[in-house]
């Protein structure tokens, strides 16, 4: 009585077997600050407002939660709720399907990419599901939360193993690999750069669980990205599909800086922060006109003189709203602009810090100079409106060398203020690095009804839904880590 039933129950709109190449391409797009509000809620409204790249005048209860430090479960838990199911699961499927020895390069690339995403998750929330994660198909529906220390240890091990496992004689993802087109040498550089990023995050940790110095030096010795040609960059086009668009441009242009707003009718009343614009302006930074415009009588004006940021903690859209700087439609808001995942600006600045710490033999001043130069040059990837003349770049780096005579803190301030400026748009990473280093020194706002007592948040609260659907593991995590607050410091941030 069930003849033909099995055949009937095969989905005609889907494949029964995975294609790891196609899954990998999709995971690069999806994992990367996805266009389904992930960038907007997590990176822009929260991370980017916390560290005063941006300012949002909307009410503290809504889009102003990041600007003014309030809990907003919907926005702040979004990354947690989204990224496992939309990207990590896909990576898990590839890992399952690519176990054969000839797939080792695909496996390694996948493992490296997974570390980048997992680090983003744990850096936002602290302890998160890791070893138990994405095991829903094996009936693990309530994964336990691993300590961040364990996650970090494993991520470093994963990177090390994955990089070592690359085999030039085996096939690669090829053109399905939107980052490096299957170039193994470049994947190794990317892997080591990520190792440096992961390692350096633990400089404050005193429990000895991660030998930070060893890992940092190992990464540098392995060969990190130093040339622009090796940067991890995802390229986008101006459509036709949403997923073809740069997610940052798409989110910012569709959620706040909407067509026709002309600096006045920004949906969420967002602008560049006064802190950020002042920083660029004071140093006569040539990036100012690249990143920022003021809408002057309905025209986007990049002239330095009229740029001014909006103070964080603003709660009104007054008549002066239009006079504040916002992202440049010719660069940042271009749907076809590239997305910089990990570049030589970051690696050089981190290596400068490594040298400053006296680890290894690097030249901290030169590395600093390299980093800042790279940061300015990389804007050329955004097209003519982003290109800064080499002479201007040289002028700028000459005018602002690392003051090697200063004390450690002063030099850290210089390095990481530049890091903060260089990683504009990668708000996740910039926020994590700011928490680790404390630079630049930011003056928090203390808005009525804020949830932190007027200090800049140190993490995101977990998804409220976890309290209901994964209660025991959630409770174990907060009893270990501290209350589920914006102010609780995570393991590497103590």
């Amino acid at each position: 009585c069930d003849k033909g039933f099995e055949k009937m129950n095969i989905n005609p709109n889907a494949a029964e077997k995975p294609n790891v190449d196609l899954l990998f391409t999709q995971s690069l797009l999806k994992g990367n600050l996805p266009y389904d509000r992930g960038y907007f809620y997590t990176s822009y409204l929260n991370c980017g407002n916390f560290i005063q790249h941006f300012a949002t005048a909307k009410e503290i209860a809504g889009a102003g939660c990041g600007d003014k430090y309030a809990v907003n479960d919907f926005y702040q838990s979004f990354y947690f709720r989204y990224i496992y199911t939309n990207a990590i699961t896909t990576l898990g499927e590839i890992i399952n399907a690519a176990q054969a020895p000839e797939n080792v390069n695909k496996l390694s690339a996948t493992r490296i990419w997974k570390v980048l995403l997992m680090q983003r998750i744990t850096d936002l929330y602290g302890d998160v599901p890791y070893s138990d994660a994405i095991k829903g198909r094996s009936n693990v529906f309530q994964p336990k939360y691993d300590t961040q220390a364990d996650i970090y240890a494993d991520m470093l091990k994963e990177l090390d193993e994955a990089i070592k496992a690359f085999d030039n004689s085996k096939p690669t993802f090829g053109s399905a690999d939107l980052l490096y087109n299957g170039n193994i040498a470049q994947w190794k550089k990317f892997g080591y750069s990520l190792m440096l990023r992961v390692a350096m995050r633990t400089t404050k940790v005193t429990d000895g669980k991660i030998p930070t110095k060893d890992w940092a030096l190992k990464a540098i010795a392995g060969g990190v990205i130093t040339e622009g040609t090796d940067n991890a960059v995802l390229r986008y086009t101006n459509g036709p599909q949403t997923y073809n668009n740069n997610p940052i441009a798409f989110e910012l242009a569709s959620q706040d800086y909407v067509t026709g707003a002309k600096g006045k009718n920004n949906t969420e009343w967002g602008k560049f922060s006064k802190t950020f614009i002042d920083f660029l302006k004071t140093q006569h930074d040539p990036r100012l006109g690249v990143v920022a415009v003021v809408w002057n009588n309905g025209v986007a004006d990049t002239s330095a003189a009229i740029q001014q940021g909006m103070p964080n903690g603003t709660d009104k859209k007054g008549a002066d709203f239009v006079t504040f700087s916002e992202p440049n439609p010719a660069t940042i808001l271009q749907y076809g602009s590239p997305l910089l995942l990990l570049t030589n600006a970051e690696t050089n600045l981190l290596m400068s810090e490594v040298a400053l710490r006296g680890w290894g033999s690097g030249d901290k001043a030169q590395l600093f100079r390299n980093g800042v130069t790279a940061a300015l040059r990389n804007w050329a990837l955004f097209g003519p409106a982003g290109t800064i003349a080499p002479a201007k770049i040289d002028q700028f780096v000459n005018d602002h060398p690392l003051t090697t005579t200063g004390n450690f803190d002063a030099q850290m301030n210089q390095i990481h203020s530049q890091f903060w400026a260089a990683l504009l748009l990668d708000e996740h990473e910039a926020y994590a690095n700011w928490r680790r280093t404390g630079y630049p020194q930011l003056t928090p706002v203390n808005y009525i009804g804020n949830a932190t007592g007027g200090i800049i948040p140190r993490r995101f609260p977990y998804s409220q839904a976890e309290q209901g659907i994964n209660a025991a593991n959630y409770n174990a995590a907060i009893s270990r880590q501290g209350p589920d607050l914006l102010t609780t410091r995570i393991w590497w941030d103590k």
Partner: protein
Amino acid sequence: SAQTTANNPLQISGTVTSAADGQKIIGASVSLVAAKGVGAMTDPEGKFVIKIPAANQANVELLVSFMGFEKKQVKVNPGQTLVNVQLEVSSKALGELVVTALGIKKEKKALAYAVTEVRGSDFTQAREINIADGLTGKVAGVNASSTAGGPGSSSRVIIRGNGSLNGDNQPLYVVNGMPIDNTTQSSVASGNGAIGLNSDRGDGIAGINPDDIESLTVLKGGPAAALYGARASNGVILITTKKGVKQKGIGVDYNSTFTVETPAIIPDWQYEYGSGQNGQKPLSQADAINAGRLSWGAKMDGSNVIQFDGVSRPYEAQKRNIKNFYNTGTTFTNTVAVSGGNDMATYRVSLSDMNNHGLVPNQHLNKKIGAVSLAVNPAKNLSIEAYAQYNIEKAQNRSGVSDAPGNVNWGTYMLGNSIDIRSLDPGYDADGKEINWNPSGFASNPFFVINKFRNNDDRKRFIGNLSVKYNLLPNLFVRGRVNHDYINLNYTGIVPTGTAYAPKGFYQQYSTASTETNGELTVNYQGKLTRDLGITAMAGGNQRKSISDAVNLNGTDFFAPGFYDPSNVVSLSTTNVNLRQATNSLFGSVDLSFKDMLYLTVTGRNDWFSTLAPKNNNIFYPSVGASFLLSEAVKMPDFINFAKVRTSWAQVGGATPQPYGLYQSYTILSGGGHLGQPLQTPTQIPSQSGIGGSGLLQAPNPDLKPLLSTTLEAGIEARFLNNRLSADITFYSRKTTNDIMQAAISPASGYNYALLNVGEMSNKGIEVLLTGNPVKKKDFSWDVSYNMAYNKNEVLSLAEGISGLQLDVSVNSYAYIYAEKGKPYSTIKGFKVKKDAAGNTIYDKATGYEVKSELTDLGTGVSPFSAGITNNFRYKQFNLSFLIDGKFGGHVYSATNLYATRFGLSKITLPGREDGLTVNGVDTDGKPFSRTFTYGKDLQGYYDNYKNLSEKFVYDASFIKLRQVVLTYNLPVKAFAFTKLQAMSVSLVARNLLILYKNAPNIDPESTFSNSNAQGFEMFGVPRTRSYGVNLMVKL
């Protein structure tokens, strides 16, 4: 003289009518008591002629009988040749037949389970657009509620409580014995993220025209519905359509109803302080827009104050905004039916047109239904019945509900209380751009939405069934039946260019064709094993196939503004969703009767499902029941006319998963990939919107098996005092095990949901139906019918380690709906104000706001207790009936009240505006705490923080409503004998006339906007209406 007539046959004629309503009885048997074999039948006019043989012409006595009526013996006086007989409706229900599972008619007295029959005419005077909404309050144990989705939206009908955690909990609808499709087209979202076309496009039952319904039978539980197997777990509603009757000429029925609808509730906002912030009037246009939805201004003083559009107008209370925005809705329904027939064949043809102009401007719904019913007896042993209907339905601009984008109701209710809503008209500027009245582009300008949005669907539907019955022997027949339900839905939704939150717009176009096809073959035997032991036996099989083919187009950004076609969309994705499933079944039943006193029923059914893996794709469902007529067995006191006890036990199944849920599959993303590279993703839960699916993953589970629902029920029926009072009481206990639960799991598991065979849920309850006839006079009678039901629901267990199942989340996660172990299904959860051990409120030192508690229970969204009472008064030609019904013990989380508090509209935000509000309690360290909030500074923020304290907006959802009133005047058609008029009546009708009792302020507690399993959220639905009008019925 007796001698002289002896040689001439005496001919007696007359008419047989029903004493209850004067209707002619066709086919009644009239026989001579004194001699067997002498008799006649009444013709279609109810007339009979009987010839009395000479031998029997003395003391003529006639026996008149008809099924469902008391037999009557009539003495004929010598010389009398005209005898008109009135039959009383049978008190013992000896002959009363009711339609049961598979459309089989059974004697009511033999039934071992509760069945309630509602006449079609109960729905045709005071009408609801969706007939299922008309069930409210009428049947004990049937919890029917319409949703606040506007005209043409779905209903939610729950019989004996929710049985499944995630499966469909609504009953199976069956027309003429065969199932139809009741799929809800587009369930509305409760939370954030809808793009602005969040409307309910109606369900399947709404496609049935009440005028075509002869009767509607509710099979409440497993025992009654067991023969439907896997689809019976939520009860079954059987609809029997009207058939033609044998008569001379053509009978014509005409029914016309016109009603007007107005909002039932106007919120009671504060009208002391006008639009503004922190006690200030707006001073600039920018201020005015910022304060567009904030009534936190100064005291209204009539002075000229600038508003959102830069125009200054008096700062005065605008109490008529709701009335000024909404239209008076109208619904005009006309049905004409012709019928007729002879011994060979009968027919009925009906045409119906329902035209609704909703109270939301520009909203329009039209439904045309044509139906044909045919019964043919081409040969002595052969009978054929056929029914077909075709619907053409058009809905324009269905209103969005719930969250603000594209929802006209949101802005209309939340507009600052000193702004006249008409000043928002037409909602767009010279360039067609939406005019902002508030700082959030997501809170749409209601006039922009009604003038520019498009939310249209066209639906074509065919329902056909054919039944062929062949009598092999007088007591053995075979019957084959097929039915086919076809729905074609074409939907276009447009968020236009110029929309504040989507300046380049969105485009949606969905075409869905779905069919439900059933073929059934049964063999039926009826006979007597001994003189006292009767048997009816049936065996058969059914094949069901359900197919749904959808093509969904989703687009973002229009190239050329204002031209709405897929060719003009920048980013377009096309998705096919093809769902196929089938169920094969074998079933049988045996009914035994002993001396018309004891009845026994046994049924069994085995179902095979295509959506499960072969190793556990079938299950057997048994049922057994007994009915015992005490009043036949024992001599009862005189005041008891009838008494029966019954009990039954059954297992049925249900909630088999959607197709393709067993194994992981992988979907290519529509739209051409990225930079020439195709993109593949683990297959997501199908969704009509979104690229590649809903963005949600469900962990595959190859081990699923069907759920089991076991019901034990017992009941008593009795009639007293010459049948003037009757009672029918049922107790039941229903337990669902192995429930297939779509558990929300931690997304860190890699999936959003898992399908698990683990849930257990219990429903226990009592149903009472009392009917009485307190007055019964020639000119005046009073009938009363009271029904009551109490259902205790408890979630017994979920998956191991899972204590709660999240069913829904409100906008911004302010409140949740859960199924939690040990608690009733659909429990509202949220946050309370945190108190210390001594009961002091705990305040946050920094903010001075109340600290919220952990996530906690705030009540159940499903009312456990419901009751309805219908009174019917007849005085001469007048008839007045009214229905009062109520539901008790449920709760509702009201987002309308939440936002009204945040925005300063609610009266609970008045304290402190004059002299400040001082709060006292303890801080988070347990030290005494006090803070004074002042209006000019921080009072607004204090009240705004209430959003985090969900308990403040959870209300008792109990209510009592005057649900329906019908005042009818029956024309004395006899006075117009020259016309062919058989009956005619004019009625004043009303629905939802008054709310007699409620506790939830500013809203109708029945205003949940979704018919999904998660019940308990209210948020900016289309206002509940009261409707009143006129009904005309003519019978020619």
